[in-house]
């Protein structure tokens, strides 16, 4: 499974997006655009990504640019997996 599918699926789970999950593509804006993505959701999302992908995300990597779009978040995770 491509990383983007994993990230999309974690996002859909954590934010309880339901059918909207399927409409997300690389360009879809996240932070500031998806109303469910508040600070608590960001923390849950990080924990879920760490668990699902087996990566460790550092505090100083919690950055608005990372969470800008599904594409930017996926690129970040791919970088952590590399």
């Amino acid at each position, binding site marked *: 499974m491509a990383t983007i599918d994993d990230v999309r*699926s974690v996002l859909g*789970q*954590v*934010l*309880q997006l339901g059918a909207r999950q399927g409409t997300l593509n690389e360009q879809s804006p996240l*932070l*500031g655009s998806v*109303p*469910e*993505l*508040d*600070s*608590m*959701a*960001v*923390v*849950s999302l*990080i*924990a*879920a990504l760490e*668990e*699902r992908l087996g990566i460790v995300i*550092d*505090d*100083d990597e*919690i*950055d*608005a640019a990372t*969470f800008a779009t599904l594409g930017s978040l996926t690129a970040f995770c791919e970088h952590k997996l590399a």
Partner: protein
Amino acid sequence: MYHPPAGPVRAGVVFVHAFAEEMNKSRHLVAQASRALAAQGLGVLLIDMKGCGDSTGLFEDASWDDWRSDVHLAVQFMRGRGHARLALWGMRLGALLAAQCAAEMPIGVTRCVFWQPVLQGETHLVQFLRLRLASAMFSGTKSDETGKVLRARLAAGESIEVAGYLLSPAMAARLSSLDLASLRPPCPVSWFEVIADEQRALTPAASRVIAAWQGLGTSVHLTPVAAEPFWGASNAAELVQCPALVEATSRQAQAWF
């Protein structure tokens, strides 16, 4: 808040809530589950511990030991109402607290029920502090704050505000020392764990705790529930739902006592 049982009383349940925002966001879900348990003849007591919810006192003044006393008082209250058979039902950090209290009670509780228990207080603290870092991201204020910086400030005796909660250095230190594995309850445990889907196994960390307890003779009944992670649900305006968990809990409650 007491949910009286429908019909004849079978047993009592004392709910031990989650920490800070997780408590707040799960209120509706817990009330729903409580009504489902009451419909099965269980009397369910929901308490707000010191400094939490509608309780008196300030969050930053409450200590872990205050919360322990609150749980003990709630159990005494239920015993006073004639509940000889009692379960402690703890959610997330509340499960850790319930496990600890269960081991301390002079008259043991009949069962512990856990909803997505926090395994390590340290992990919970790290995630709680991340809330502050995540909030900074939304306000667009770029700061050099990291968990390490916040921990150093706590260690130096400063309270840290996180998502509207003032975290005291004493609470942070206590949280960081808590380890569920070392708090094995002296009674059977019903453990509910939400997983992404049926194909996914329980996290290795949770499996280790359960195996260790079982090895020491504690009966642990694990129920994986395929659902969305309700405890970190995002939108406060939308009420957190997790019907699968409520249903699984109330179905099993038949066999608790």
